[in-house]
């Protein structure tokens, strides 16, 4: 177990950090539903929840269906102002009793703790993920980190329970250096796990962009000193509070780049719907920019352009497809076109995970595939790079194709098939691009909904749980 002693800064780190200043931000955050009920919110927010909605939500307080306990309720003024004219944005940020109608789901989706060598670090193959903040400026109701944000007691591998904790730089830095030393000494592969060097770290949470510049700078420099070449920041702050991307933040980034010119920054941003970044006319339509494309919210566009003009920073958007928010091909088509035009690559769309309460948010897997496929009709090739991904315990898996035609003579394929492709395995690289084929089930929202119609399982998505292809079951 790595020691928990504090990180010791190098002179180079100290010199960089001495240049960093914190900006001042006024997010005007509103959290806690009781504030809406007592009228203790600004005048223009008074009707954001109807009296009926508030009564329904408050009646669940203290029960096992308590919405605030499942996921704290929180939003910024910026998000509220856009959401006033956007039903999808309201669904994203407003608590609803349907969230806790069915509480089935996994406490630790993706079994992250299996891959956690020290508190707050998840090491999946060449990529490490760090929890550096346990909150965001606002909270998406569908959040798949609700166990972290809501500080829930999680069963650990050793049988104890405790809330998930945040990463500490000292411990993480020592783990990275030790792992990479063992890999280097062993000719490029870890002697026990066969993994390659840790080259890339994702700062996540919560949202790292809620942290002050000095705090973010401490992570960037500490990870660079540990030998990390690519640092990702996973953030929804462009949607929640774009003013966070202010001159003090960019001054910090520029100072970092001066000192660590070979470290890349990969901004993993999170827009779910074009309403989050586009201006709308009073009739609800988007506004044509006479010079091309559509009109953006100025602060959001300014932030994106400032990121995009730095050649060592890339910007990728990732979004789940969530019921009543963006299960809409037209919205996704506009989003992919506008993000790409403005320097944001479209990376993944996700099927919702099997979090507690997932049945309120997830759309069926085959429908999600259909929505994305429809949205990409009429996009140019470069605009349509995004793939649909679903996160299996084994790793990130693409929903590669859904067919309408039956496969003659194949048991389970009477209504067509769905093809899963394992994109990257969490433990090692050898299984990349292996395939699993299942018979269609239009109602399926998670892998186990296909247990009775597995046709071909090269990727081992089902065999690892003892589920065999249907024809083998029949033969036995």
């Amino acid at each position, binding site marked *: 177990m790595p020691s928990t002693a504090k990180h010791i800064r190098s002179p180079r780190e100290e010199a960089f950090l001495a240049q960093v200043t914190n900006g001042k931000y006024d997010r005007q955050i509103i*959290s806690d539903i009781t504030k809406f009920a007592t009228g203790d919110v600004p005048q223009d927010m008074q009707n954001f929840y109807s009296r009926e909605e508030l009564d329904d939500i408050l009646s669940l307080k203290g029960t096992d269906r308590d919405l605030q306990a499942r996921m704290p309720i929180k939003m910024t003024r910026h998000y509220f102002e856009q959401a006033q004219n956007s039903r999808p944005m309201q669904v994203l940020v407003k608590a609803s009793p349907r969230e806790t109608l069915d509480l089935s789901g996994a406490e630790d989706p993706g079994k992250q703790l299996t891959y956690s060598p020290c508190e707050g670090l998840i090491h999946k193959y060449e990529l490490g993920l760090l929890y550096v903040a346990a909150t965001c400026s606002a909270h998406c109701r569908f959040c798949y980190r609700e166990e972290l944000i809501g500080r829930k007691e999680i069963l650990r591998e050793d049988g104890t329970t405790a809330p998930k904790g945040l990463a500490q730089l000292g411990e993480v830095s020592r783990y990275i250096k030790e792992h990479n030393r063992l890999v280097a000494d062993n000719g490029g592969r870890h002697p026990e796990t066969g993994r390659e060097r840790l080259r890339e770290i994702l700062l996540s949470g919560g949202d790292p962009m809620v942290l002050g510049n000095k*705090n973010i700078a401490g992570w960037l420099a500490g990870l660079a000193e540990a030998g990390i070449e690519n640092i990702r920041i996973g953030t929804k702050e462009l949607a929640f509070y774009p003013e966070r991307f202010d001159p003090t933040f960019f001054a910090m980034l520029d100072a970092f780049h001066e000192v660590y010119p070979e470290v890349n920054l990969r901004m993993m941003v999170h827009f779910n719907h074009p309403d989050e970044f586009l201006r709308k006319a009073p009739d609800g339509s988007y506004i044509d920019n006479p010079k091309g494309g559509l009109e953006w919210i100025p602060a959001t566009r300014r932030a994106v352009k400032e990121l995009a003009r730095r050649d060592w920073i890339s910007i990728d958007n990732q979004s789940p497809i969530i019921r009543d928010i963006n299960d809409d091909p037209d919205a996704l088509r506009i989003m992919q076109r506008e993000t790409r035009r403005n320097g944001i690559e479209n990376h993944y769309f996700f099927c919702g995970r099997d979090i507690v309460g997932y049945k309120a948010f997830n759309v069926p897997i085959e429908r999600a595939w259909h929505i994305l496929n429809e949205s990409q009709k009429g996009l140019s090739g470069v605009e349509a790079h995004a793939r649909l991904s679903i996160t299996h315990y084994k790793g990130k898996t693409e929903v590669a194709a859904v067919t309408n035609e039956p496969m003659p003579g194949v048991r389970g394929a009477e209504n067509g098939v769905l093809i899963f492709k394992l994109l990257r395995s969490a433990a090692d690289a050898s299984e990349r691009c292996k395939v699993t084929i299942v018979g269609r089930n239009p109602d399926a929202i998670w892998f186990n909904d296909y247990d009775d119609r597995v046709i071909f399982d090269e990727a081992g998505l089902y065999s690892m749980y003892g589920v065999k292809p249907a024809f083998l079951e029949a033969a036995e």
Partner: protein
Amino acid sequence: MTYVVTENCIRCKYTDCVDVCPVDCFYEGPNFLVIHPDECIDCDACVPACPAKAIYRDTDLPDAMAHFLGLNEELSRIWPNITDQRDPLPDAASWDGAEGKLAHLER
């Protein structure tokens, strides 16, 4: 929405909260700390970190401490920002839990 530092911080000033605050929203007076209500992001990290149990979410603020909401707001606009943990005040342990500490607040 914000979190609020209340009376039992006075003359203790342990500053453990400063170490865990992700947004550096604590401001420091001679014998008391306050939270800037606009900068606080409601993350809850400081509440369990405070050895004197002096920090509350505004919606959980006991009635007897209600006036500390305004006091945090007022003083955070005057006092300097504190971003690094320091030693507590010399008699912190003996003042922890003492009655009537507001009378000892230095501005």
